[in-house]
């Protein structure tokens, strides 16, 4: 769903500015600044314990920032208690009220808006329709399956038409198969009601599928913000490169640094690494080169290029249906991962029979396949 946002649609709806949350000297959120645009789905992605939930809870009002400001639609939220914020949250494992029916759960928020009875009934009907749960209106939460509970939770948080919707690990309680289906379904619903949404997840696939932009969070700090493709293709640090997808990292020292290309001398390789982009750094400084497994080619004969290749032996082949991952061991025992689509007819890729264990091969990649990272 990584729909890119046209520039004219980019008006900032939520502005998180230099927010810090200090728990007894431990900074769970450390100077985070973020702008969220009107109508987008933004995913905070990070490993468990990096401070995502804490940041989300500050947006909902359950935690007070130690310093910094949160501005929603031009108004500071710092002194607004959770029950007065135009923000609603779908909780991890949903937090549906067990003693109320589906209908009552959804009506709960509306009752505190001083709406008339018929208005409440209409709204409940409308959001139940939106999540296709009308026939379950009279059920109690324990009478629903996981996916149904999630839809009710979503309906409940959308019923008050919040200016900002928060989702905390929305798929955390679902099994894998249901997850993929619900991800798309939820995105469809959110786009239909055009709500601005910040979600939190540790699952990069989920963030990539659902969000228009992602923020990679690590130890209380946002490391990188961008559209999923950008973050995947152009990580700005080893941390983001390694967190999203799998990646091969080569460490070395910078040996050439021009405006349009750079070269790295790497202990693991016999030839230099050549990248078709410049870097910020000085000659001789340590540098890492990151290249995705699917950007690397593999064949039996030596490639006719001076840089960006290595010789090794196939140690393992993981068959994953549509593609296979080859584990190629270089002379100094470094493992390089190569991903190749299984539909490529082997004879067209290389001469000879299919590759198998213990075969001697060359791995190689193009100048623009990877990125140099100095942190």
């Amino acid at each position: 769903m990584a729909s890119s946002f046209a520039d004219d649609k980019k008006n900032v709806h939520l502005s998180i500015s230099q927010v810090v949350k200090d728990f007894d000297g431990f900074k769970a959120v450390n100077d985070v600044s973020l702008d969220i645009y009107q109508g987008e789905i933004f995913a905070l992605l990070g490993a468990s314990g990096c401070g995502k939930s804490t940041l989300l809870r500050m947006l909902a009002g359950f935690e007070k920032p130690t310093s910094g400001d949160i501005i929603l639609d031009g108004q500071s939220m710092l002194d607004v208690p959770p029950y007065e914020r135009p923000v609603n949250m779908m909780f991890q494992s949903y937090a549906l009220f067990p003693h109320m029916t589906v209908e009552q759960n959804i009506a709960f928020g509306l009752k505190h808006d001083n709406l008339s009875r018929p208005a409440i009934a209409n709204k409940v009907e409308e959001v139940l329709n939106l999540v296709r749960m009308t026939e379950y209106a009279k059920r109690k939460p324990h009478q629903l399956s996981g996916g149904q509970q999630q839809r009710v939770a979503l309906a409940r948080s959308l019923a008050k038409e919040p200016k900002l919707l928060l989702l905390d690990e929305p798929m955390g309680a679902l099994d894998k198969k249901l997850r993929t289906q619900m991800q798309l379904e939820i995105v469809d619903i959110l786009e239909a009601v055009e709500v601005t949404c910040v979600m939190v997840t540790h699952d990069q696939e989920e963030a990539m599928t659902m969000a228009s932009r992602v923020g990679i969070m690590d130890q209380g700090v946002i490391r990188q913000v961008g559209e999923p493709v950008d973050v995947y293709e152009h990580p700005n640090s080893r941390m983001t490169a390694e967190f999203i997808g799998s990646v091969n990292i080569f460490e070395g020292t910078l040996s050439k640094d021009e405006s349009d290309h750079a070269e790295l001398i790497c202990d693991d390789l016999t030839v230099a690494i050549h990248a078709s982009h410049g870097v910020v750094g000085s000659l001789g400084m340590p540098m890492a080169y990151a290249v995705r497994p699917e950007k690397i080619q593999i064949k039996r004969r030596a490639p006719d290029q001076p840089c960006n290749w290595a010789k090794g032996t196939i140690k393992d082949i993981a068959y994953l249906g549509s593609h296979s991952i080859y584990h190629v061991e270089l002379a100094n025992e470094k493992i390089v991962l190569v991903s190749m689509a299984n539909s490529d007819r082997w004879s067209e890729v290389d001469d000879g029979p299919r590759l198998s264990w213990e075969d001697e091969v060359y791995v190689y990649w193009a100048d623009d396949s990877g990125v140099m990272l100095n942190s």
Partner: protein
Amino acid sequence: MSTNKTNKLSWAILLGGFAFLYLPIFILIVYSFNESRLVTVWAGFSTKWYGELFEDEQMMSAVWMSLKIAFLSASAAVALGTLAAIALVRSGAFKGKTLFTGMITAPLVMPEVITGLSLLLLFVTMSQVLGWPEGRGSLTIWIAHTTFNMAYVAVVVSARLRELDRRLEEAAMDLGANKFQVFIYITLPIVAPALLAGWLLAFTLSLDDLVIASFVSGPGSTTLPMVVFSSVRLGVSPKINALATLLVLAVAMAAFIAWWFMRRNELQRQKEIRSAFSQ
């Protein structure tokens, strides 16, 4: 066969255990229908002691007094004990929290004699210094019972509160309910079974108490256990047997009704869950 032997042996032990538990009660029930004034001599079937029981005004007023005190002290204990539980579970970490949590359970293990005596001293001192409570009677018994019942309720309710998912309360607040509304609409209904259990426990404990009530009661405020105990010392009257039989019947019926309601709810719930997943 040795397994057969052990089987028989364990049956015998089980029967013996149950006989030990229920035979005395059974004998008591049987003798409540005894014609004779002598409790230990069987002289034919009669229900006359039940008639005499209902005509015994002292006994009946003691029953009424006990029920009234049990009802009021259970209700007060639920209110205060719930507040104490909330304070303990929800106050976050503060210095000496463990000490306070331990202290609220102390009345549970304190010998009743000590509780009774200390309360008596308190009431005497208070009436001397403050002029309240004037003398001792049903008011002081009620206060005393509320004191130790509150501890039981606090323990029962705080266990349930600790289990309660805080996210439910946060979700309610997120949907626009202020702290008071969250408590009324979310917290209370969810912990209600614990409140009911605490109330019933407090009610029976109050009904049951002899020692503490004896310390803090005054003239004209005798509870049922006190009447039973003092009349038994003068020789067991078959009226007591009749009263005890009625009490056993009442307790058994209450237990049965509670069990039946719980079973019905559980069956209903299971049926609903099955129907939800069979679609």
